[in-house]
């Protein structure tokens, strides 16, 4: 119980400020504050202090803390990372071309030794990028297809159109990314755009040794197919 003649304690001032004193004590505290300049001054300063604390700005995190969820969110991240899209596009195109030309060569009984390095380059290109999941921790809940979470921090500007040389090549990138084993944590931890850049460079080399007509036909067909699949997924 409060004595109206003695000064209010810090606990009482603090609780009074929050309206946390019992009803009778609140009345007594108010009466005392009216009469006592010392306590009124202390209380007023306390109010100012709390007011300043409440006015402190909320801070923006330097990075987003969203958890990676492969494979559901891989596609959305790829869409935002131009470099990744280009790298994967080149790799996917290379793989497709190898497959197509391999078939053609089987039919025509000719060999294409120049195309062989492509699959190697592809596995190098896709593995680090499927790890686009930012987390140092790999969390693999049941994948739910929705439009993936937006990356807020540390994300380069929205993806520019794919390189002019490969107009329909971006969508196949997603195809090949999805075809990777989803929960391969070793790969997931290796998210480095540098690796992608290197891989993209090496992946585009074999393209030069393939006949251009086959490249265009293959890439266009795969691009259309992947676009259809991606749209279907978005509607889910």
């Amino acid at each position, binding site marked *: 119980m409060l004595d109206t003649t003695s000064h209010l304690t810090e606990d009482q001032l*603090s609780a009074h400020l929050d309206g946390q004193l019992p009803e009778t004590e609140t009345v007594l505290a108010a009466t005392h504050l009216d009469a006592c300049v010392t306590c009124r001054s202390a209380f007023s300063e306390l109010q100012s202090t709390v007011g*300043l604390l409440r006015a402190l*700005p909320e*801070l*923006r*995190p330097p990075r*987003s803390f969203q958890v990676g969820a492969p494979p559901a969110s891989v596609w959305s991240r790829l869409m935002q990372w131009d470099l990744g899209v280009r790298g994967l596009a080149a790799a996917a195109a290379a793989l497709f071309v190898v497959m197509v030309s391999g078939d053609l060569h089987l039919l025509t009984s000719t060999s294409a030794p120049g195309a062989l390095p492509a699959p190697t380059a592809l596995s190098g290109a896709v593995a680090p990028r499927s790890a686009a999941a930012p987390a140092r921790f790999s*969390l693999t*809940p049941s994948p739910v297809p929705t439009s993936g979470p937006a990356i807020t921090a540390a994300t380069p500007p929205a993806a520019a159109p794919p390189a002019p040389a490969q107009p329909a090549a971006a969508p196949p990138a997603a195809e090949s990314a999805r075809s990777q084993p989803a929960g391969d944590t070793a790969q997931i931890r290796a998210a480095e755009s540098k690796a992608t850049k290197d891989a993209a460079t090496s992946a585009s080399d074999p393209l030069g040794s393939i006949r251009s007509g086959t490249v265009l036909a293959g890439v266009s067909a795969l691009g259309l197919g992947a676009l259809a699949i991606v749209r279907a997924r978005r509607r889910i």
Partner: protein
Amino acid sequence: MQQPGQSDDAAILERARAGDADAFNALVRAHERPMYSLAYRLLGNADDAADAIQDAFVNAFRALRQFRGEEVRPWLFRIAVRCCYDQLRRRKRRREDSLEQTSGDDHWDPPSAPGEGPESNALRTETARAIQQALMELPIEHRTMVILCDVQGLSYEEAAEAASIELGTVKSRLSRARARLRDMLRARGELPSGSERLAET
């Protein structure tokens, strides 16, 4: 204090509990700023705060299936406070390992301009820095209380849950922290002078 988006949490929470990572990420997006702010105010530098909150969200994700409450924020703050304390301990160990001589665990970096939101205009930058500096001089338990209750606006009950302490302890720590801060801010000229105050009243 009811935060915007709090009511949406329940539905998202249900989906997140079922293992929907996108739903969990929606929770992350809704709470990462207050979580990070809490950690920054407690730890005083951006790297430690980001590491602590990264840990906190990972821990929250793992604990999600066991969480049966309805209010997400106090639960997340509780995890965040624990992770911040862990981060402080790690920092102390690092410092002891490197034989670095500093005063306590309270070194701090002012928030860099890009780290602050547009609402940073709400308070003069120098005042905000003076307050942060004063906060860092409080014992960590007192700092925690004043940040939870006054900066983040938690009720006494929520703060008790977030800091895993009794309600009575919240009140006493809060009042001591406020009194100490008031004295420090007065000494730094950040509070209205006595005559200004009397003129107002």
